[in-house]
């Protein structure tokens, strides 16, 4: 028997369903050039590593469907993403056992922080497609992180690197007064809610 939650149960408090897919991001949309694009793993790794676009897109892929919740109060259900699971990156990055957290980086100084445990969840993916179509630049294409269990600012658009850390360092929005954990069903929107 498959138990499926109703839409009402899938929409966190303070959220409403969106019909489309609103476009929001900090700063300009970066230009993508597959010849010069690099994805860098650094910080607490045995050796820094950089992958080209061809290398990154050759890693094993998965497809999964998940809901997406933006802190600006819209939710979008049943998104199908295809891409490289975070676990595949972690397995190739030669990460030090001392690492407990990571900052996922993007151009123009954007970043978001997460515990490694959260990133290693089986629904976390660096996605190239959304609902079967290549991810548009305005939605983070050609590749974005997707972390469905957190508010969407943690799902870093145009991700281009991971910094592995032995502590929880706040990212772009977390420094600007937004919640370090960002669980939608606990409505963890702002830093003043943190214990």
């Amino acid at each position: 028997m498959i138990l499926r939650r109703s839409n009402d149960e899938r929409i966190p408090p303070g959220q409403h369903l969106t019909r489309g897919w609103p476009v929001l991001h900090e700063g300009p949309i970066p230009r993508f050039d597959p010849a010069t694009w690099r994805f860098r793993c650094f910080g607490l790794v045995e050796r820094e590593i950089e992958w080209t676009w061809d290398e990154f897109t050759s890693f094993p892929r998965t497809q999964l469907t998940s809901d997406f919740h933006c802190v600006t109060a819209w939710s979008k259900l049943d998104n199908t993403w295809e891409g490289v699971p975070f676990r595949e990156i972690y397995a190739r990055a030669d990460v030090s056992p001392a690492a407990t957290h990571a900052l996922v980086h993007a151009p123009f100084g954007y970043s978001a922080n997460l515990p490694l445990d959260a990133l290693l969840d089986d629904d976390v993916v660096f996605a190239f497609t959304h609902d079967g179509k290549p991810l548009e630049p305005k939605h983070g294409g050609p590749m974005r992180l997707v972390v469905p269990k957190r508010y969407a600012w943690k799902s870093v658009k145009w991700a281009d690197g991971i910094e592995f850390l032995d502590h929880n360092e706040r990212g772009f929005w977390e420094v600007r007064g937004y919640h370090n954990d960002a669980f939608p069903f606990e409505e963890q929107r702002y830093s003043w809610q943190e214990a």
Partner: protein
Amino acid sequence: MPGDPAAVWSLIQRADELIKYASNRDERAAYAQARAALTEAEILIPELDEPQRVRFTEQIALRRGDLDRYDPAS
């Protein structure tokens, strides 16, 4: 009587939303409105207690720095 930190945060959030949704409209106009919202927030800051004054002054400075990077010509 101390000022209302919620009113200051609300204006900062207004600036955040203007910046985040700027690409859907006239970006420069959105950035100008975001700067105006931050200026409104700054006007309320002297009424707050000391820790809140420090906190919100830092938050506004971060956003002004972001706007200077995204819209350097303004």
